[in-house]
């Protein structure tokens, strides 16, 4: 029985994962173990393409993280502006607290970019709705900036998701 298993399996020459001997492609990394030269060339070209896509994704995640830092800064500045006009310590505290959440999410995005950026985006959208309740006209104020912020975090979020997907397939990439 053991002999038979040894006969039928081999290690993939690319990712070293155990695979069946007669298969054309490695089921773990997709390397054409028993494929043609053309297939092999395609495999490496695809990997090179994915690698450059990953670098691009890394950049997008970085700008999304920076957007969260900027939002944190904006909340602190607004906190001071409100404080000087209303003299209410509560407004200052609320703004600082929200800034703290943005800061925590920005740091969390270094470890878990996907879920941290998703939380950041949904926090931002929630704050837009809350300010719309307080003052309905606030929804159109600075609408271009809002789109810009949402698109920056959104791009980073989808890139982080793609990156996480690629990582589970090719951990050595």
């Amino acid at each position, binding site marked *: 029985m053991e002999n038979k298993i040894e006969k039928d399996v081999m290690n993939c020459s690319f990712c070293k994962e155990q695979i069946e001997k007669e*298969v*054309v492609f490695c089921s773990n990394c*997709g390397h054409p173990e028993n*494929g043609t030269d053309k297939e092999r060339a395609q495999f490496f070209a695809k990997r090179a393409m994915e690698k450059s896509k990953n670098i691009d994704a890394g950049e997008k995640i970085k700008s999304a993280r920076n957007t969260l830092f900027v939002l944190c800064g904006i909340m602190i500045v607004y906190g001071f502006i409100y404080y000087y006009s209303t003299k209410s310590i509560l407004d200052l505290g609320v703004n600082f*607290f929200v800034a703290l959440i943005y800061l925590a999410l920005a740091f969390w995005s270094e470890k878990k970019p996907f879920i941290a950026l998703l939380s950041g985006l*949904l926090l931002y959208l929630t704050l837009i*709705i*809350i300010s719309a309740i307080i003052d309905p006209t606030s929804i159109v104020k600075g609408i271009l900036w809002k789109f810009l912020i949402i698109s920056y975090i959104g791009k980073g979020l989808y890139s982080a*998701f793609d990156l996480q997907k690629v990582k589970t397939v090719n951990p050595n990439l």
Partner: protein
Amino acid sequence: MNQCGNCKKRYETNVNFCSTCGNQLLEKKSNVIDFIIAFYVSIIVFIGLSFFIYDGYKENIWVEILVESLFISLVIGFSLVRRKEMLQLYKFPKINKGLLSLYILVTIVNSFLVYYGVEFVNSFINDVSLNSYESYLYLDYPFLWALIFIAILPPIFEELAFRGFLFNLLTEVTSVKSTIIATSLLFALVHFSFISLIWIFPFGLFLGYLRFKYDSLWLPMLIHFIHNLCVLLVDYYVFNS
């Protein structure tokens, strides 16, 4: 089991690539993210609109019933897309009686701490907190209405929305730990209140942990119900004394 979409070969275990034609067999799940965002945004837009509706129709039970049923249909409508998974969550969990009493005790103590903590913070910032019982006094049976709208309906449908639907979608795209943290944060955010953000977040972590540990919605629903009931009873007692 999965099947290669290119050459139709079937696999017993999960494989990344088809070994016959080299086709990548990974499911594309980015539509799950769109779904999560769509669900959350519809909830916050709905809550935002309901603020304006309640502001225009004060002390009107029919408006409250209408808004509440619209929220329930929104949550159920989304959940129907994953009805099989959602129904799985309504199985009764097996739980040790001692542990259950411990959870209930912790919930009761916590609800008193939260109640008086919020009162204290409100008195500190000169804000009058709303007595949840008092707002139903215009009706014939205020306690009954308060019980339905505070202690019974929110636990059932908030748990379905956050610990059921959102939790399941998030576990498809991220780890369980991240899911519990994210659902608690979003659960705290939809309450649209600064003070509740501080105490609802840890409460959400506890509910998320119970949902994960027992793979059922009954326990989070029970704990949420007991918490809301305690707060309502204290409000009732404070109002009458």
